[in-house]
């Protein structure tokens, strides 16, 4: 090997380094460093000009000190001076210093860039490479500005040396990553793609990283790389282990390049060209075959390189998700690795199988390995491997194996590493819910979860079990019995007390018949836990007690006594004190009727995405669970309690059994930010008012209701309905933010209303918007009902209707706004009027803005005003129909679409939809009675557009052919578009 300078190049540096190494303490080291820094500073400041060698040595020492972890605040200028040295080693040290210690001192950056520019144009490949390495290492915006246009030129120039090309490619990649806006695509891009064909393997290896990154952002411009990559890959895969000389690594031909090629292909869908695809499939098969061959070397490097390619190939197979044969082979291969003696392979196999589990082709194949995976969960010594096993069990879980998997995960949880417990708890909770056929199993599982890992059971988990118990009356008795038993344990987790308190408060009556769990026994059991609990739990228990008074009048005296004692009624915590005072008062004043109404059983919860799932997604980052979720949702149609009618008034849910909304009683998970301090005081005064006004003479239920459940019935605050002519007029109080762009699902929501005029347009956690509309000729009137689903008022609620772009000239939309800041349904719905001037295809936008808990909510929807709403049905005979059909024979007047049925093809359903469309459904017109024919006239201000429609269902193929002929071609097209979504 070359005469390695082993430090004798710069003896002073070597001496300094050994001094530092000999330091016995940190203090001694710092002392030595300070001495050296003082020395260097004086040298740099000294009158005598330093020669290049000294400068290099001192700069190198500074670098060493910096890398030890000390701050360096000088020497940059000297390093920059080294850049322009004509001695290679001096230049090299200068560049190294700059690369490690960049300083965004503008003066220096200019000097550095100058030096780089000189080296880039020096035509000396070694200097050029040094400069390129520096740019790649620093990668700052300033450098991108200076060199982003120069480097592509160097990269594709015919006379550039290979080594420079390699550096240029990766340098450009780094600049593209930091400042994509500065790297302009140009004619160089096609030449870059062709670097995949370069003779020099090193050039291909470097260039492909650049191409992969660029392809991800601009797939269309780079799609020619697919066939080039496939042929390159095929040449490597089929080459003998010695063909590629130094690019063969432990008998594996070009492993890095192969992996990069397979990675590049993952940016694209499977090749469309049959020949290319065939060649690629062949490559993938060869890679899978090679995995079965005996190893050519016992070295771990050989198997690692070979398996690196194999795993990358499997990633590609999973990415394509279209070759069942390959997917199953991949799964079998991974199955072998699951029992491999190399921990690394077991880890990767578990990880890779996780993604295979979500493919419909390989899901079953993955499931066959369940015992091995469970075994891994139990026996792997490395927690990160066990974590992978747990992930895989979660991914492979379905209805058939849920009980087994949940049981295994629960038993693992008892000994699981602390770092993964919370995630495990979430996963168990999700699986138990998703695959619960038998709800008593679900309840048992969650209670077990709380028992085993109570500390890791987040609010979402126990909220969820309560939501489900409340929504399923078949499990309520069982739940009450089970929590009652669980609470018998001398030490039970506070989360268990919360669930127990809530469930017994609601459903304790279901087990009260048994003397062993009589009301008083239940109460005493709960109250025995009271003093060990935190404030939120105590608050919840107090609510449970008042519910007990309602459920079991015989407990009234006992409970009142408890409420009356000083530790409750004079509790220093305002929340507890208030509850105690209110509940005591309520129980002594209100009649049993009033009590029964106020403390009624909780209505069912509205169905929404499981908050637990949302939490897991958040924890794991986007995409982490979404794949399996999607698949699971596909596989499992019916979700838990996804059926049945929801409660009549969603707002009621927010006001739980307690009069004072406190975070602890909030099961919806949407009000976690609700101000705890503010709410109780106002409620408190309200309550007192009601009682003092009405007096003890048993107030009427209605009045009492109003006051007590203020959340439900409080009248809307502002209902000042003002008629505003013209659109786009926004309220002065409205927040100044621009209207949000329409929601991504706006079109989908709009499509729901093509064939109907009334219904719920939109719903989220806060707000529900209902629509009623009527149309006559070219006029339409739409009423919008805003329902506030929360317990608090929305501030600055404004709505604006606008017609974007050219729609302005096509449709007059005017809104009559009425403020609806209150809760519940607004009594005065907002009305909008539409007058259609000419045919149109866009929909008017409805923007809604309001403040909720301080945050501005800004959402934009499309109002379902579609052209078909202005249809007038036209009855006609078969003869007339065909005559007109023929008259509308110009090609542009017809629009046709053949599409797959998305909804039921039932005759009655179809008829209802076609009538809802607004046209006349004509019988006995089409010779084929299976087909539907409709006719109508669209009324606009200026003209009338005649429309004929023919819908031909094919029940066997589950397809439709839809044909529209209209006297105006834009109408044909728009109607065709709209209707294709309806059937």
């Amino acid at each position, binding site marked *: 090997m070359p005469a390695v300078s082993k430090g004798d190049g710069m003896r002073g540096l070597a001496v300094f380094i050994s001094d530092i190494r000999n330091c016995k303490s940190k203090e001694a080291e710092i002392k030595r460093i300070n001495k050296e820094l003082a020395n260097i500073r004086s040298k740099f400041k000294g009158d005598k000009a330093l020669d290049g060698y000294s400068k290099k040595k001192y700069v190198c020492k500074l670098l060493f000190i910096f890398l030890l972890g000390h701050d360096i605040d000088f020497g940059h200028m000297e390093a920059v001076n080294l850049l322009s040295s004509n001695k290679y080693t001096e230049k090299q040290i200068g560049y190294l210093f700059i690369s490690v210690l960049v300083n965004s001192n503008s003066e220096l950056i200019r000097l550095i860039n100058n030096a780089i520019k000189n080296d880039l144009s020096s035509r000396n490949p070694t200097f050029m490479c040094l400069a390129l*390495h520096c740019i790649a290492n620093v990668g700052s915006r300033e450098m991108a500005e200076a060199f982003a246009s120069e480097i592509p030129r160097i990269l594709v120039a015919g006379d550039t040396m290979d080594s420079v090309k390699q550096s240029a490619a990766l340098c450009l990649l780094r600049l593209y990553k930091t400042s994509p806006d500065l790297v302009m695509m140009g004619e160089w891009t096609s030449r870059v793609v062709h670097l995949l064909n370069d003779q020099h393997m090193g050039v291909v290896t*470097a260039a492909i990283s650049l191409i992969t990154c660029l392809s991800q952002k601009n797939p269309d411009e780079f799609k020619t790389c697919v066939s080039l990559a496939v042929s390159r890959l095929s040449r490597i895969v089929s080459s003998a282990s010695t063909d590629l000389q*130094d690019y063969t690594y432990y008998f594996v031909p070009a492993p890095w390049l192969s992996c990069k090629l397979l990675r590049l292909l993952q940016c694209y869908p499977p090749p469309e060209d049959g020949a290319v695809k065939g060649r690629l499939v062949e490559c993938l098969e060869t890679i899978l075959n090679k995995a079965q061959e005996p190893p050519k070397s016992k070295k771990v490097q050989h198997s690692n390189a070979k398996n690196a390619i194999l795993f990358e190939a499997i990633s590609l197979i999973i990415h394509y998700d279209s070759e069942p044969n390959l997917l199953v082979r991949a799964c079998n291969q991974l199955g072998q690795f699951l029992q491999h003696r190399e921990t690394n392979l077991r880890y990767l196999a578990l990880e890779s199988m996780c993604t295979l589990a979500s493919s419909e082709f390989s899901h079953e194949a993955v499931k066959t390995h369940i015992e091995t995976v469970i075994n891994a969960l139990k026996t792997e010594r490395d927690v990160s491997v066990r974590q992978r096993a747990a992930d895989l069990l979660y991914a492979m879980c379905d209805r058939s194996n849920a009980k087994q998997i949940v049981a295994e995960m629960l038993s693992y949880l008892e000994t699981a590493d602390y770092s993964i417990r919370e995630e495990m708890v979430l996963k168990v909770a999700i699986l138990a819910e998703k695959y619960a056929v038998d709800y008593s199993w679900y309840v048992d599982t969650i209670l077990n979860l709380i028992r085993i890992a109570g500390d890791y059971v987040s609010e979402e988990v126990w909220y969820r079990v309560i939501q489900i118990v409340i929504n399923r009356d078949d499990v309520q008795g069982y739940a009450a019995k089970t929590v009652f038993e669980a609470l018998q344990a001398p030490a039970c987790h506070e989360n268990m007390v919360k669930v127990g308190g809530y469930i017994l408060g609601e459903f304790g009556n279901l087990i009260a018949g048994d003397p062993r769990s009589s009301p008083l026994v239940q109460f005493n059991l709960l109250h025995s836990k009271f003093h060990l609990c935190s404030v939120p739990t105590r608050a919840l228990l107090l609510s449970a007690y008042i519910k007990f008074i309602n459920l079991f009048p015989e407990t009234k005296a006992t409970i009142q006594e408890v409420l009356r004692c000083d530790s409750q009624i004079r509790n220093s915590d305002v929340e507890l004190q208030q509850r105690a005072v209110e509940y005591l008062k309520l129980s002594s004043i209100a009649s049993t009727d009033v009590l029964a109404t106020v403390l009624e059983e909780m209505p069912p919860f509205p169905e929404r995405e499981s908050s637990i799932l949302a939490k897991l997604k958040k924890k794991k980052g986007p995409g982490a669970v979404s794949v399996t979720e999607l698949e699971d949702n596909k596989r499992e149609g019916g979700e838990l309690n996804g059926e049945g009618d929801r409660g009549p008034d969603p707002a009621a849910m927010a006001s739980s059994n307690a009069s004072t909304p406190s975070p602890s009683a909030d099961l919806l998970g949407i009000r976690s930010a609700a101000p705890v301090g503010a709410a109780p005081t106002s409620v408190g005064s309200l309550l007192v008012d009601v009682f003092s006004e009405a007096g003890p003479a048993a107030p009427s239920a209605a009045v009492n209701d109003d006051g007590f459940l203020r959340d439900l019935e409080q009248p809307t605050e502002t209902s000042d309905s003002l008629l505003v002519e013209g659109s786009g007029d926004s309220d002065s109080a409205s927040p100044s933010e621009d209207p949000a762009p329409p929601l991504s699902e706006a079109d989908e929501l709009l499509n729901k209303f093509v064939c109907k005029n009334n219904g719920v347009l939109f719903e989220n956690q806060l707000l529900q918007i209902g629509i009623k509309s009527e149309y006559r000729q070219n006029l339409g009137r739409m009423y919008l009902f805003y329902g506030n689903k929360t317990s608090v008022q929305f501030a600055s609620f404004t709505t604006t209707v606008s017609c974007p772009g050219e729609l302005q000239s096509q449709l007059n939309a005017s809104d009559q706004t009425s403020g609806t800041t209150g809760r519940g349904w607004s009594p005065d719905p907002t009305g909008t009027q539409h007058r259609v001037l000419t045919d149109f295809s866009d929909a008017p936008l409805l923007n809604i803005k309001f403040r909720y808990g301080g945050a501005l909510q800004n959402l934009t929807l499309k109002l379902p005003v579609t052209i078909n709403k202005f249809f007038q049905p036209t009855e006609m005979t078969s003869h007339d129909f065909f005559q007109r059909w023929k008259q509308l024979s110009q090609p542009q007047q017809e629009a046709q679409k053949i599409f797959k049925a998305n909804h039921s093809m039932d005759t009655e359903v179809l008829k209802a939809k076609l009538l809802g469309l607004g046209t006349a459904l004509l019988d006995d017109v089409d010779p084929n009675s299976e087909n539907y024919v409709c006719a109508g006239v669209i009324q606009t201000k200026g003209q009338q557009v005649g429309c004929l429609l023919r819908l031909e269902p094919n029940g066997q193929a589950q397809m439709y052919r839809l044909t529209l002929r209209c006297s105006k071609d834009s109408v044909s097209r728009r109607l065709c578009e709209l209707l294709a979504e309806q059937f």
Partner: protein
Amino acid sequence: MQFMLLFSRQGKLRLQKWYVPLSDKEKKKITRELVQTVLARKPKMCSFLEWRDMKIVYKRYASLYFCCAIENQDNELITLEIIHRYVELLDKYFGSVCELDIIFNFEKAYFILDEFLLGGEAQETSKKNVLKAIEQADLLQEPRHEYFAVPVY
């Protein structure tokens, strides 16, 4: 690749290469935490771990740990062999490399790394080609006698 760290069994950092822009403070924090995490692992454990939002690939050679942070879609095994190839390059250049070589010739260790990996991606995987580039650079070194006259301090 996001970064590569070389550190000793005592947790002393010997080489650091960052391919993503981070502040010095962040770098120090990451280094401290990661060194601790890796050193706490037992010998037979697997070479990969999930850490923050990255994947960590590490391997111990004698007294030195080589540790790479890669992105989620990157290939763990090939990264392990990147580490190995780098070790081979150091070994060939220094002639059975040891930790001391890297301490005293830290700048060389950086130069070799730059020839092999650039911007976090493999630039040249042929051992011969990388060493050729380094040799050429060494040939450009000034004859040693030039320095003999210069005082050490």
